[in-house]
């Protein structure tokens, strides 16, 4: 049993089951929407978790990449007539390229200095999106044309699907593939190298690992995850505002990683789920919503300091939370 749970593909398998069965118990498309948002956030968080949880590098600017993906999906079709799906690909490639160029100098920094540098990067991206309204629509946001999948399904197969259902499955599939790719990476020489860098950078270097290159690789990979998630959110919502790329969103993504559990792919999904669902539950407390959200964040982190998934795993294993 435990061997099964520890298998590399256990997490993607669990996610397949979850994504496939969840609609059976979700009563309305509102819940489908919530689930879809969880999948999309979780996708971005998995990428960030590769960077934070496995390579041990903090980024407070990942919403910048998220925003690049989102705005690529919005702007390229509208301004240049690029077909939506290509816009998504271009967004991901652009994100990778920017991550590569920015990452080279930035990743030499350590700890909090890296945090502030990535923070600066994220703010620059958000600022450009906010200011260059002639391309991006500025602070009021921009509409995103749909990919036309619904129409295609209808004309080609006579299938009629609701937007909410369609995107539930697209985002669910993305999440499963994203998790699968992530576990692949973790279980490869690259993944071992990254974890090694996290535990002892100096020993990793002596073992022949090109630490700078490894950090750059995972930074680029995580940027692509964020960009794809951004594109998905933009297309799903049909409308996007610069806050998507903002500092607070970056913080939210980092919080999801840490809350769910650094270095845990399943934790990424749990962290995303908590921060997407919690505000929906807290709405009944009106004015006390934020107070409670802050309180719960503190309580979670104090009692499950390794994150929810690793923390609970430790509890179940009977070793206590500490």
């Amino acid at each position, binding site marked *: 049993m435990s061997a099964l749970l520890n298998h590399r593909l256990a997490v993607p398998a669990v996610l397949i089951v979850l994504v496939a069965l969840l609609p059976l118990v979700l009563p309305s498309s509102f819940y489908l929407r919530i689930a879809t948002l969880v999948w999309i956030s979780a996708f971005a968080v998995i990428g960030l978790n590769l960077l934070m949880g496995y390579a041990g590098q903090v980024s407070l600017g990942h919403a910048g990449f998220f925003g690049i993906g989102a705005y690529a999906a919005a702007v390229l079709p509208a301004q240049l007539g690029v077909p939506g799906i290509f816009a998504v690909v271009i967004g991901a490639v652009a994100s990778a390229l920017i991550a590569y160029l920015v990452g080279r100098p930035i990743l030499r920094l350590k700890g909090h200095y890296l945090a502030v540098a990535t923070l600066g990067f994220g703010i620059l991206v958000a600022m450009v999106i906010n200011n260059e309204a002639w391309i991006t629509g500025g602070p009021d946001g921009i509409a995103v044309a749909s990919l036309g999948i619904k129409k295609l399904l209808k004309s080609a197969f006579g299938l009629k699907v609701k937007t909410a259902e369609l995107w539930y499955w697209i985002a669910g599939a993305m999440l499963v593939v994203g998790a699968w790719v992530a576990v692949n*990476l973790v279980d490869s*020489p690259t*993944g*071992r190298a990254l*974890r090694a860098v996290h535990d002892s950078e100096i020993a990793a270097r*002596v*073992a022949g690992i090109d*630490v700078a290159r490894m950090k750059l690789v995972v930074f680029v990979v995580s940027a692509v995850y964020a960009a794809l998630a951004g594109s998905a959110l933009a297309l799903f919502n049909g409308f996007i505002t610069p806050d998507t790329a903002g500092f607070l969103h970056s913080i939210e993504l980092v919080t999801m990683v840490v809350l769910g559990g650094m270095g845990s792919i399943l934790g990424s999904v749990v962290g995303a789920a908590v921060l997407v669902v919690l505000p929906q539950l807290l709405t009944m407390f009106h004015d006390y919503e934020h107070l409670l959200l802050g309180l719960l964040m503190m309580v979670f982190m104090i009692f499950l300091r390794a994150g929810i998934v690793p923390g609970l795993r430790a509890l179940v294993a009977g070793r206590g939370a500490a």
Partner: protein
Amino acid sequence: MSILSVEDLGIEFGGLKAVDNVSFAVEAGEVFSIIGPNGAGKTTLFNLISGVYTPKHGKVLLEGRDVTGVGPHLLARKGLSRTFQNLQIFFRMTALENVMVGCHRHERMNVFAHLLALPSVARQNEATRAAALTLLSRVGLAAYADTVAGSMPYGALKRLEIARALAADPKVLLLDEPAAGCNPVETEEIDALIHQIAADGVTVVLVEHDMKLVMRISDRLHVLDYGRTLAEGTAETVRRNPDVIAAYLGSHGSKEAARAFG
């Protein structure tokens, strides 16, 4: 041509000359030890040779080629590996994975293949795993293969580090106090291991405080004091060198001298 040589090597920290004009040459297949009282600059010297620090002056030559200032990961690819005085273990990984990381320089690093788990990656993982297991058995840690390093005993970690260093298939292996903190039985095992490594043709450069071990195992010794060369030669010549005795007796007390030569 010596396999490893240093020429006039030196570095300063805030005006203090931690290593000052040190030169020596290590021949292929030898066990070469660097000894000296605490603070003599032995570990700093290792850090200079292995590329962790960049020397202020002097040269490091590996197989006759100048590798001064070359980063550790490039030196690893050129066949130089090392262990650390205070353990630098990947504590959150299993013993097997630690050694697998050591195999890094033999692995193909195609990230796309890794992301997509192409069959070649699975084959490579298998090969690496097999090689790592062999090494673990060789240092007597096969039983710990799937144990997370963080929960292994100290003596085992010392050997795990050696196994990881060996995984890189080095020509020259720098061992920084491999027996420090080990009990007599563990020290015995380390002793045997070093013998075996040397017998396999790997050049060993050793920093060690356990003089019994050093004297027994070394072909030649290099003695440092206050960052400078005090003496060099076989165990016998060094043992008789009056400067060495004075250094150990005079400035560092009789206890250490007794430990060294008793």
